[in-house]
């Protein structure tokens, strides 16, 4: 007894020890707290950086530079014999028609190289624009019209200020002469930036100014249609069986573990499955949204099954007991009473699964949806690509204008995803019931 008091006296009272260390401990507390706060801020900063980077690169793709020209639809060139035959018109040399007003504006340009450079400020799609106008309204032939023609992607970049005019000419995509012409056009008010509708309707193209996401959006639509029409019924049915009917035994245990594991299998492995099974074994067409939809179905099924089971679990047993009590069969209980109550949760899970499928790229690369496809697909068996794959394809292209378009495509993709997730959140808030 005396020994311990002795020891205590030697070391001082415990409160002194505590007090002495208190300052240090509080400092540590503060440090830990700031560390946590800075982790949260860092995370938020990453989100901010990502979005700011994408938006700042991509917002300018939503306008497209056009050059306003007085085009003379010369009957000598378009339809010399006055046949008004669409086939003759389609074969006419509209490049000449498009170039004529440029020659009139810059009569001083001579020499083959300079002329070629001058003509290149118009997109190679500009003649087709004129052709479309004439095909829509043949009475234009022989008249003079003010037309906004698509500018080349380099001119587009120059007009949007993405090309550094002070850089040495060798590092620039446009030389001083072209800059002079564009400045002259600009001073006459002939350069106009309009909303870029072609970006939303066109298919892919090698020319950035003509490339659009129309084909990719249609491909994504068909792919998701296949995915949704297969994965929702199958996922809900599987969830109903596992949650309501399956006996609890080893076999159902295996299915359950299996579903949880499938949810974490890398998506690219599903692509290998699609390639080996659907394409090589069953001979389904490559690059088709049907195959993409099948692969994504297998990929999203676990998500939907897990969400649907959670929704079924949240329906209280009293509902089931009441239904069984008034003489409903088990099947009637589930389909008439439990399923309607669980439906909002199941739909929420399905939307989240669809959002996942919409953003998925890797498995679709395996089944050949990376092809360069100009046409907008018209059905689930046509070759097509999807929005994220289009982003991947464009990201590889060296032109500055494609960087802009890639970012814009990403913005469209993110807008779809945000909308889908917002619907899921709203549905959850609106229909969630606490029992």
């Amino acid at each position, binding site marked *: 007894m005396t020994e311990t008091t002795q020891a205590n006296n030697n070391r001082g009272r415990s409160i002194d020890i505590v007090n002495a260390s208190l300052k240090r401990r509080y400092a540590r507390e503060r440090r830990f707290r700031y560390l946590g706060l800075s982790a*949260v801020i860092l995370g938020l900063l990453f989100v901010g950086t990502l979005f700011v980077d994408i938006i700042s690169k991509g917002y300018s793709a939503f306008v497209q530079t056009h050059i306003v020209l007085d085009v003379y639809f010369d009957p000598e060139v378009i339809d010399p014999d006055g046949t008004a035959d669409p086939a003759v018109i389609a074969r006419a040399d509209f490049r000449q028609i498009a170039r004529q007003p440029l020659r009139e504006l810059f009569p001083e340009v001579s020499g083959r190289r300079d002329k070629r450079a001058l003509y290149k400020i118009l997109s190679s799609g500009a003649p087709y624009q004129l052709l479309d106008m004439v095909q829509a309204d043949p009475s234009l032939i022989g008249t003079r019209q003010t037309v906004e023609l698509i500018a080349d992607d380099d001119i587009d970049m120059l007009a949007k200020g993405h090309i550094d005019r002070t850089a040495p000419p060798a590092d620039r995509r446009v030389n001083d002469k072209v800059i002079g012409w564009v400045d002259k056009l600009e001073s006459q008010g002939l350069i106009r930036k309009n909303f870029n509708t072609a970006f939303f309707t066109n298919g892919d193209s090698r020319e950035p100014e003509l490339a659009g996401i129309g084909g990719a959006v249609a491909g994504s639509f068909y792919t998701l249609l296949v995915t949704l029409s297969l994965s929702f019924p199958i996922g809900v049915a599987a969830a109903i069986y596992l949650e309501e009917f399956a006996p609890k035994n080893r076999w159902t245990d295996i299915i359950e573990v299996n579903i949880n594991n499938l949810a974490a299998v890398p998506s*690219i492995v599903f692509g290998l*499955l699609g390639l080996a099974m659907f394409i090589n074994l069953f001979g389904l067409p490559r690059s088709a949204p049907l195959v993409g939809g099948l692969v994504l179905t297998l990929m999203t099924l676990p998500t939907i099954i897990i969400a649907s089971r959670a929704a079924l679990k949240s329906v209280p047993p009293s509902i089931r007991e009441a239904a069984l009590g008034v003489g409903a069969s088990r099947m009637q209980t589930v389909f008439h009473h439990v399923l309607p109550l669980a439906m909002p949760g199941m739909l929420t899970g399905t939307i989240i699964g669809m959002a996942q499928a919409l953003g998925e790229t890797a498995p679709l690369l395996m089944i050949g949806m990376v092809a360069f496809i100009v046409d907008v697909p018209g059905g689930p068996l046509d070759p097509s690509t999807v929005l994220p794959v289009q982003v991947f394809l464009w990201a590889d292209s060296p032109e500055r204008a494609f960087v802009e378009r890639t970012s814009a495509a990403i913005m469209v993709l993110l807008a779809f995803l945000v909308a889908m997730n917002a619907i899921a959140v709203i549905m959850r808030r609106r229909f969630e019931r606490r029992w």
Partner: protein
Amino acid sequence: MQLSVLVFVLLGVMALAYHLGRRRSLATVGGRVGARSLHSLPSYYGFYTALWAGLPALLIAGLWVFFEGSIINSMVVQGLPSELRELPPAQLGLLMNDVNNLASGNIVSGEVDATMQRAADHLNELRSIGSTALAIAVLSIALGTASLAWRAIGPKMRARNRVEVIVSSLLVVSSLIAILTTVGIVLSVLFESFRFFQKVPVTDFLFGLEWSPQVALRADQVGASGAFGAIPLFAGTLLISFIALLVAVPVGLMSAIYLADYAGPKLRSNAKPVLEVLAGVPTVVYGFFAALTLAPAIRGVGESVGLSVSSESALAAGLVMGIMIIPFVSSLSDDVINAVPQSLRDAAYALGATRSETIRQVVLPAALPGIMGGILLAASRAIGETMIVVMAAGLSANLTANPLDSVTTVTVQIVTLLVGDQEFDSAKTLAAFALGLLLFVVTLGLNIVALHIVRKYREQYE
């Protein structure tokens, strides 16, 4: 007839069958008044007829869609002249590809001769016969089975029980699809891997230090050694995943701790969903960000301090991948931290511990198994991630631990080997499946361990 039209017609037939079945059940008992003497509700007789009308026909149509291609193909091959039939499979495949293109009016690679034209015509003919036959078969089966079911309807028939048996077997089949998917993955990957290991020994693949999957066509070809050693790929994958975890684990864990134990309800309810946005962003977007923004930035910084940085450095890919998996780590850690009972915390506070001491010495040790499980899941995510590395990491298989160097990963190689033209008997293509098998096995192992840990840990405090 178009397949989609056929499906719609079939749906129409089902609706009609429902209506007729329902009517007949009422008719057998003398209208609505007699409905009480029916065994089941009238609509069950309708469902019974409709299911019989639709299911067998849909099954036939589905089987046809899956096997149409290969059946018609083999019939066309049978129709070819014998000297063409004897060609090696690869050339025959090319020939058939041309025939296919010719039949659908596309551009053909070589010259079109008479036999090819004949084969293409044959193909088109078979296709049109096939689709007509399918339409007739499907519709007659639908009508036949529906009328059989319709005739069986009577007041004594236990329609509800029969419908329920059909529906419950459909439910069982749906839940088996998950199993079938796994079996399909394993079989398809295993089968091609076996063919690969017949060409390249397993030990060379697993322990080889050299990866250059170019198979020499001639003996004297340069740069086509055909080495299939997977070690550099795994080293690259591990390097990038390690960098990713180095970013994601501290940030994710600390933000989960802060949001669970320190933050006010307002910050918590706002910051959590914003952080979870990171999990919803498509990986191709991260890839774009890594390749076009972060990699040049890292390169610029590196060069300004005199380091030579590859433009496809492992660092850029790893950092961005780390950002991607932050929400996985943080939401899983959040779950387990919240699952630690309040009584443990209260006990620590009662002893005079500060908040951070409670967290570090009580909460974290208690939550450690769950957190480890979460980290393992995140690691398996990182190993299997494809798009970020395809876009931001390189192709050259360097065996290095320098994060500023360019490395390649398993998933990158699978993509580069399988995108574009393939021949299915070369070691080059089959190697992708062997890599896929390894990837599947490794991630499956990680997942099983992680899910087991998480599950076990949850039980502990429940």
